[in-house]
């Protein structure tokens, strides 16, 4: 599968106000149109459709009759999972041009009468009996539990977690679309309201409108299209629980598995990575990813980020768009990990461009630290 499929078109949108003018299908279709235009393709080329709620309904709306379809719903990592499945399908010859889309407008929906579709859980949900009665605040509560455990076992501090928010904000300052761009300090994070201990308000992601789409095709076809292809060098997905009380070890995610599989397929090591786009629903989420993907040893994430390693000028540029913490977080943020990776690998990232970026990781985290999906993406030079 390595190098068999490529990302050839991307589009995304967010705004400094946190709100967008359009929503629903209109926004989704606008993103698909923009991503296809970016690739130099049209809807008539599409024979594969991914959508985190229903690829069948969305394909019908578009008038597309796909021969590859994927509605896999793993929360925020859904788009990395779709990317993996699409790359495998393209490599296997099942289809030729695949689109994936996401649009969510939780912020502007507050002033609008809408029935926002919610992720559906099929079958019995044991959380109703074994978790809900104890009033754990969602979604930050489970992440707070993970942070408390990490602090107790490894001595990680609130200051170290805060540094992730600070470094990410430095990147956001260079993204005109980011919700928050003013610099913050570790003290600002610690002085913000304690939500669920040990997580403060500024340890938590935003609630904003946002949308995006990507287009994938075979490596062969990609070379004739409008933009330099970004190749899928490796991919891996793993999940180890749904309820946080069932997570085997609250300090270690299934990213250990998804990351190792993706890196192995790509034939790379953490040292080879120029850019890490890592799902940052909370500061602790990003810290766990750094450890689980092997950028530092387990328990050393705090010391790693404390030096500013993930900030502009650091050894590992992370979340260069400003992340879920400062750029946008419409609910399932994984789409933006992919669109930013592609922009960086094409050299289209403007002020925040990482010089000479050849290999990027898009690492999605879905559910409650549940489903991890890792994509290794690279330029032509990495094939």
């Amino acid at each position, binding site marked *: 599968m390595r190098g068999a499929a490529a990302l050839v078109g991307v589009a995304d949108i967010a705004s400094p106000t946190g709100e967008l003018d359009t929503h629903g299908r209109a926004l989704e279709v606008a993103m698909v149109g923009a991503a296809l235009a970016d690739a130099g393709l049209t809807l008539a080329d599409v024979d594969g459709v991914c959508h985190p709620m229903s690829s069948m309904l969305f394909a019908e709306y578009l008038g597309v009759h796909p021969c590859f379809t994927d509605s896999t719903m793993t929360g925020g990592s859904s788009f990395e999972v779709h990317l993996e499945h699409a790359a495998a399908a393209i490599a296997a010859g099942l289809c030729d041009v695949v689109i994936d889309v996401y649009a969510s407008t939780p912020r502007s929906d507050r002033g609008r009468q809408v029935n926002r579709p919610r992720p559906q859980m099929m079958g*019995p949900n*044991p959380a109703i*009996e*074994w*978790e809900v*009665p*104890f*009033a*754990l*605040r*969602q979604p930050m*509560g489970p992440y*707070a*539990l*993970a942070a*408390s*455990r990490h*602090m*107790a*076992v490894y001595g990680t501090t609130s200051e170290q977690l805060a540094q992730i928010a600070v470094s990410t904000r430095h990147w956001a300052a260079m993204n005109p679309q980011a919700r928050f761009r003013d610099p913050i300090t570790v003290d600002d994070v610690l002085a913000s*309201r*304690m*939500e*669920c*201990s*040990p*997580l403060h308000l500024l340890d938590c992601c935003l609630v904003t409108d946002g949308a995006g789409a990507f287009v994938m095709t075979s490596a062969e076809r990609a070379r004739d299209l409008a933009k330099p292809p970004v190749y899928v060098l490796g991919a891996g997905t793993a999940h180890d629980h749904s*309820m*946080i*009380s*069932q997570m085997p070890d*609250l300090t270690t995610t299934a990213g250990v598995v998804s990351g190792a599989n993706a890196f192995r397929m790509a034939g790379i090591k953490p040292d080879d990575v120029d850019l890490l786009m890592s799902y940052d629903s909370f500061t602790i989420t990003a810290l766990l990813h750094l450890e689980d993907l092997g950028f530092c040893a387990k328990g050393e994430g705090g010391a790693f980020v404390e030096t500013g390693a993930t900030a502009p000028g650091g050894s590992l540029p992370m979340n260069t768009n400003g992340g879920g913490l400062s750029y946008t977080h419409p609910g399932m943020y994984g789409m933006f990990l992919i669109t930013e990776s592609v922009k960086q690998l094409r050299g289209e990232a403007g002020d925040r461009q990482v010089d000479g970026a050849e290999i990027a990781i898009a690492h999605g985290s879905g559910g409650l630290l549940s489903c991890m999906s890792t994509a290794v993406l690279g330029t032509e030079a990495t094939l």
Partner: protein
Amino acid sequence: MSETSAPFWDATRDRRLVIQWCTACDAPVWFPRDVCLGCLGDALEWRAASGRGEVYAFTVENKPAMPTPFGDEPYVVALVELAEGPRLMTNVVGCPPQSVTVGMPVQVTWEELSDGRNLPLFEPA
């Protein structure tokens, strides 16, 4: 409450904490299921748990997600690892939230529900 979990909740009416065990594997099964995950067999029975354990992870909730018996007061949501092995979500009560720590020994205590069942909470042991 499902047919599978009914014995757990019935026992709470007498303030007894019970855990499902596979007699073939001699291992606890949590959360309650229709088969043992070790052998996929159904030689399951309910055994009394010690009610003792320790705090595995916790958070102090300052802004409740829903109406709770704690009113406007901060409260602790924790994962407690029972001496028998299973890890349960619960509330730690009977002490100031600030005094809870990871590794703290706790024991079960009960909060009565309106239908006569009791909710297993934990307090410092």
